[in-house]
């Protein structure tokens, strides 16, 4: 297990290196970017940029020095906000986005697993069809549509909940979390239903039933662990999706998190900010994929044995 974890961690290094290299040269080739000669930016920014990137040196040396900085966790100054570094902007946005993603994940897991497990207990009845139809609607209702509709209904017409900000007014975290979480709740409902149905048809469940265990005990003690493996494996990709979703949700609800910074950086063509944030977000996503893989393996004895066999 540990050896597998370490080998997967080592495999992530070339991927990250590729991310840094590709993004650096992409941004480098951008017309009007921070690395081209013709630009009209404040002199103090130019000075900072020159110090950071050694602009008078050949490209490969700029690349190497940027790589060195990034490895030490220094993403350099912002191209558009004079006097601010990419690190500062990331540090400002990260806690907010992390909190939003956490609440959204709670919504997704809570609603999704309840609906999916409930549906799997009585397949092909109303208890199955209703949540699964709901899940299909959730999947087909993207966050950029759901968010504004929730704002329209609960924020404007009913006037129950605030529609912008994060942590300024009580209750302003509810709508963004639901907006971001709903789509994933739908996926998780489908995944947990499928996983549970498969597990519930296994022999060891029949044994448990034969022993006369209550249905609740069978589900909680025996079936959930195996039945939720697909959900756990989905958590990594879901996290990547949540980050992308935060671009939209933070834009709709005017939340000053990473997602909003990223979209604004894309609009302002703040090349160094977008370069640094791309690398940062990619690292996060790769790490979370790794974590969710490890967790899925830990939960699944069959996979664990396979890994022991190959090592």
């Amino acid at each position: 297990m540990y050896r597998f974890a370490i080998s997967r961690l080592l495999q992530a290094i070339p991927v990250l290196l590729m991310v840094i290299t590709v993004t650096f040269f992409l941004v480098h080739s951008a017309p009007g970017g921070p690395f081209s000669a013709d630009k009209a930016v404040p002199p103090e920014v130019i000075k900072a940029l020159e110090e950071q990137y050694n602009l008078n040196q050949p490209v490969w040396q700029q690349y190497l020095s940027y790589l060195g900085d990034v490895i030490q966790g220094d993403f350099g100054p912002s191209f558009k906000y004079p006097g601010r570094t990419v690190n500062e902007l990331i540090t400002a946005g990260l806690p907010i986005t992390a909190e939003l993603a956490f609440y959204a994940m709670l919504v997704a897991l809570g609603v999704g697993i309840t609906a999916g497990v409930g549906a799997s207990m009585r397949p092909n009845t109303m208890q199955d069809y209703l949540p699964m139809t709901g899940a299909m609607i959730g999947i087909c209702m993207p966050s950029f549509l759901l968010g504004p509709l929730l704002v329209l209904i609960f924020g404007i017409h009913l006037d129950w909940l605030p529609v912008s900000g994060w942590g300024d007014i009580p209750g302003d975290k509810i709508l963004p979390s639901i907006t971001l979480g709903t789509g994933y709740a739908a996926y998780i409902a489908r995944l947990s239903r499928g996983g549970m149905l498969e597990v519930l048809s296994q022999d060891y469940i029949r044994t448990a039933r034969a022993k006369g265990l209550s249905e609740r005990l069978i589900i909680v003690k025996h079936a959930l662990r195996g039945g939720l493996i697909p959900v756990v494996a989905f958590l990594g990709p879901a996290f990547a999706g949540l980050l992308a979703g935060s671009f939209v949700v933070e834009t709709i609800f005017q939340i000053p998190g990473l997602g909003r910074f990223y979209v604004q950086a894309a609009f302002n063509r703040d090349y160094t900010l977008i370069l640094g944030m791309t690398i940062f977000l990619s690292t996060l996503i790769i790490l979370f994929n790794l974590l969710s893989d490890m967790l899925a393996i830990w939960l699944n004895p069959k996979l664990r044995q396979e890994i022991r066999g190959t090592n």
Partner: protein
Amino acid sequence: MADAIEGHGSSLWKDAWIKLSKNRLALFGLAVLIMLILTSLLTPLIAPYGYETQNLDMGATAPSLLHWLGTDIFGRDMLTRIMYGGRVSLMVGFIATAVALVIGILWGAIAGFFGGRLDAVMMRIVDVLYALPFMIFIILLMVVFGRNILLLFLAIGAVEWLTMARIVRSQVMALRNQEFVEAANSLGLSQWTIIRRHIIPNTLGPVIVYTTLTIPSVMLLEAFLSFLGLGIQPPESSWGLLINYGVETMEEFPWLLIFPGIALSLTLFALNFLGDGLRDALDPRTSKD
């Protein structure tokens, strides 16, 4: 079954159609899809108003007999806007999926057919690309190279081919060693006949299923980018862009948000149901019975 023994090779498709035609949701999806394609093709002929027609004095009006879905703040007919926007959304869906299909099938078929070291290297590349956060890369591409519709097709297609490559590869590899292929070999059938009668039809099922499911996810990606203002640019229009505009004025004119939203959701709904139905009908291993 008797068909198969007598050698009428169409039984797979006949079976699939019989199964599909019993699935009402999938049929509904198919009907919606056909209607959408027809509408998109005929839009310039059947749209109630011209794409450029506007009436600034009128401004935004609620749905009425003259404008079934109302008009936007420039007095443009919403039904017309949604029809033209749907053309772009569908076009992105189909073209980007086609790009993904071509790369994915070629990549997967070559890897699966030749196997060995080539396969290992090709699939390792797919693994590495899988680990990349593509949504972020597409945004980066749009920023660096400008918001160009052709680039959008290519970028989305370049993201979506990975799963297709995996599916095709595993299909081809599994089929090469199947007993019925061996049997066909020992019966003395030619390689071409085996490929045509056994390999292609058996690979086609999962490919069709995955293609049907890729189209909605591509359309969603396009709408997502357009909503952020990083996808389709005016004067072109798409459902994502219409939703974006609708959000800006939703307090006073909610229909400007709701109708394009319904168009997008209904389409995604239909395509997903069709994809699920096709999976049940065409892919014997994952079907419910």
